[in-house]
């Protein structure tokens, strides 16, 4: 049997995070941890410790699809783990992230007004106003929360869909954070031995 660590329960954190967003959208900011930690590990440590041990979302997908049998457990189409799709999806995701920052900036500059809604799959607008009392924080802080939560929820839903259709952690094969951190790690190992694709042993 494998030893269980405290961090093996971080899937609960993933559930709490999404639940909090149903009550108060400002909790969306906590999701920044899931952005900065993996990048920190990759940039400073040259590893994917976050993906490998700390990612609540990955654990939740593994658990739901594995132990709780919500996955068909079929291999995903091969293009889903191909470099062009992974980097293409990363580029798309970063563009959408940039757009979200831009919207936040517009609100901060007074050029747009706060929209108390979240956007699923970058198209479907869902009213989400009950999670925020106007005037509590500067408008841009709230705008960022709605935008960021939209991204988090959209990617979770995508992850759940491919979990059901294919293998539990299929999302991880094209997750933008996963692609980005692996990319950073590879850059850091460039020219050094032990991590080159050429030594495919």
């Amino acid at each position, binding site marked *: 049997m*494998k030893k269980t660590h405290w961090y093996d329960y971080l899937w609960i954190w993933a559930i709490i995070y999404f639940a909090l967003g149903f009550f108060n959208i400002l909790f969306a900011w906590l999701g920044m941890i899931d952005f900065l930690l993996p990048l920190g*590990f*990759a940039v400073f*440590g*040259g*590893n*994917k*410790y976050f*993906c*490998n*041990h700390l990612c609540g979302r*990955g654990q939740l997908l*593994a658990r739901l699809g*594995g132990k709780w049998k919500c996955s068909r*457990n079929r*291999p*995903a189409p*091969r293009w889903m*783990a*191909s470099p062009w799709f*992974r980097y293409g999806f990363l580029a798309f995701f970063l563009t959408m992230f940039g757009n979200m920052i831009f919207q936040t900036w517009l609100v901060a500059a007074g050029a747009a007004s706060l929209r108390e809604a979240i956007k699923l799959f970058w198209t479907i607008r869902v009213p989400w106003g009950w999670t925020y009392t106007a005037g509590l924080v500067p408008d841009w802080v709230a705008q960022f929360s709605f935008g960021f939560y939209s991204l988090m929820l959209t990617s979770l839903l995508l992850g759940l869909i491919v979990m059901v259709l*294919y*293998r*539990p*952690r*299929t*999302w*991880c*094969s094209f997750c933008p954070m*996963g*692609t980005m*951190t*692996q990319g*950073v*790690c*590879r850059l*850091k*190992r460039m020219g050094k031995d*032990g*991590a080159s*694709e050429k*030594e*495919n*042993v």
Partner: protein
Amino acid sequence: MLSKRYAWADRSRCVACGACANECPRGAVEILHGCFARMDAERCVGCGKCAAVCPADCITLLEREARV
């Protein structure tokens, strides 16, 4: 006695997610510098648990060379 087969990850497809390492009952998988998974062929018992969960479907069970 070594098992008949052992696991091998194709580095051109591996996304270094660590799903295989979490599944391996023998602790035979290491995620090398956040780049790829590497299986310790000596430790691997060829159970195939890693291959069954790999989201990139990049793990193959190879036959060990017949040893005398």
